[in-house]
């Protein structure tokens, strides 16, 4: 892998992360926020892959697998919370649920 490819990949992953973060900030619907979170995880995952390939190490791929597992666990919890909120309080907008601060 050439250095240029590596840099492009890193920039791409940073872009994906930034897009996800923008989505998280801009969206208020919980479901879209979850999707944005997944994107935020995908960015670093790509960075790990690129870094692993650049250094010729398998640890990058191992981290990728870990991130996938983390993402799966996170989305399972997030969707469960989302469903519970939908059913229990009929909430779509994440800004309306602020009760946990009390």
């Amino acid at each position, binding site marked *: 892998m050439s250095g240029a490819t590596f840099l492009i990949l890193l920039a791409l992953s940073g872009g994906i992360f930034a897009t996800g973060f923008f989505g*998280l900030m801009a969206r*208020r619907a919980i479901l879209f926020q979850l999707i944005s979170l997944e994107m935020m995880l995908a960015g670093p995952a790509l960075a790990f892959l690129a870094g692993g390939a650049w250094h010729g190490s398998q640890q990058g791929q191992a981290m990728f697998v870990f991130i996938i597992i983390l993402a799966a666990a996170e989305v399972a919890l997030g969707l469960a919370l989302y469903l519970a909120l939908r059913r229990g309080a009929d909430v779509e907008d994440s800004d309306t649920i602020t009760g946990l601060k009390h």
Partner: protein
Amino acid sequence: MLSPYLLLLLVPAPPLAVFLILGLDPFFLRRKAVQALALLGGIAPFFAMLPLLGLCLGTECYGVMPIFTLVFGQSEVALALLLDPMSTLVGLTVAAVGALVITYAIDYMSDARIADLRRFFALMNLFLAAMLTMVLAGDTITFFFGWELMGLCSFFLIAYNTSLPQAVAAGRKAFIITRFADAFLLAGLLLLFLEANSVRLDVLIPAGTMMTEERHVVIALLLLAGALGKSAQVPFHTWLPSAMAGPTPVSALLHSATMVAAGAFMLARFSPIVMSEPAVQTIAAIFGAGTAAFGALSAIFQTDVKRLLAYSSISQIGFMVLAIGLGAPEVAIAHFVVHAMFKSLLFLAAGDITHGSDLGTSLQAMRGALRRRPISFLAYVAGAASLAGLPIVTAGWWSKEAILATAWEGGAFGIAIWVLALLTATCTAIYAFRPVFEALQPEPAHISHARRGHPVALDLHYRPRWGSGFITLPLVLLAAGSLLGGIIVGPIIRFLGAEAPHPAHLPELVAAVAPFVGMAGAAAITFVPALAAAVAGARDMRRPTRLDRKFQRWVIEPYVRLVRFLAGNRIGARAEAELELRHVQIVRWLSRGARMDGIYQALFVRPFVNIVRWLNGHRGGTVDPVGTFPVSLALQGTQALVERLAHDRFDRFWMRLANRLVRLWVLVCAIQTGRSRDYALGAALGTAALLVIAWGTTWN
């Protein structure tokens, strides 16, 4: 090429899979489907064990199936399943008994509601899978995993009738007491691991026999304590009689092949470690013989057939521990196999006879069994004969005889143990045949035929249960095993690599007479009205005899004083009144399991409850002392310091600052919006700042 030992994985897998399916119930199974699945999961391990037995008999009987290996420096964590003569034999027994008990339960539990049925069979299958995993385990982690899983399942199954408070309490008691003893086992296993740097049994046990003296004693004692707790041996026995709150198939499985027998199996598995330490071995023998005698004596005076059988399990497993203490784990395993057959048979037959009786499982509910349930009654007689050890014709005789002969050959100490064991065997015959003779008496008038007894099932309609193969087949098979199993006792001992002991003729003759003496005793206390009244009356503490009074003065009163002393005179008024009674008798004492419950209540439960109450503000305690202590300390500190310095200029300046801090606090609180987007932004900004700092500090 595939290793034939892959089959080992297939033994605990089916019940585990059935547990998952029934537990999660993704397909909304109907009643028939639940029953069919449960039956499949229960029977499959037996058929998976059969080729393994063939492998073991035919070619080499030693194989390891590695599952997962992790190496940490010098230490090695290697999960594996192990096939050797002991695991093959015990695994086959467990699988067979488990299959028969689950077959029986299909019919026995058929009136339960579908949700209860699913829960019951899911847990029964998990129970079976856990025991099989433990038996076939090739390393201590898998072993301990199965061991603990069994404790958990027994908790859930004993507390199956969640609507009955005493069932839940019994489950909790079983769980807490066995957990307490499990801690010893865990400590012992961890010490062994540190010694051997491996969890594999084939490395661990030889390393365990070769270590230094003092560690060796500690480890052997820890293992022994773990086994005593799981096997409900004195002083941990109290949970087993209460565990009768569970349904009968649960008791049958719990007492015969799994759970309580697991302790004896564990001792046999680790017997090289225990046996290379003569002092611990002697302790094991004394505990075993003492428990056997105590259990048998207590069993005589029970009025409930299931409690009687529970004490009988305590006693019989005492025999196994005794055999291990005498240095003959092979004999212990032979007794394990035979005991598994006749004890499950006794429970299943008694459960079938008393099923649906208004009298619950009391001995009176057995009456008229010959007419009502002839097959079950005959099966019960076969089981009782095997338990009592009627010479030659029963399996129990052969295995018990092997234990007695081992004791006889053990020198002066052995002969003392032999005498105790012989007396125990006589008592065994008394309590084994008490329910039989009770069952021969005419039926009391008020047994209800119209209701089948499971409390969960009470609101359901009666269904005649004549001729159900699900009940009859297990009973017949187990009865055949209990009677004819004697043929395999010798081969079992040889299969495990030892020689069956050959007793002298005289002790064998004496031991052969013992069961008949016991039978005569059982007949006497059932049919001679005076004696029967004496036993019943003694239980009610009405008519003290002179012997009773002597016993009262020399044994009971000091004991009662001890209990009261340990309780710190804080027993409840009712228990106090009970203790105050002048004529507490041996019988009552024994029928309560030596009041060990009272001691536990006074020593552990009461202080714990009191502490919790105190911590919650009862009895002059403080609510949440840990939380309130710093606050009250700070308050007192301000009073002591600030009050003295108050009202000068410095103080006012200081307080203004403090008031500003409050305003600042209000400002800072504005950040806390509760909106997740704001927090995400904060987290992102913080991370970005950290990154910038990290970048700045590593810049060169």
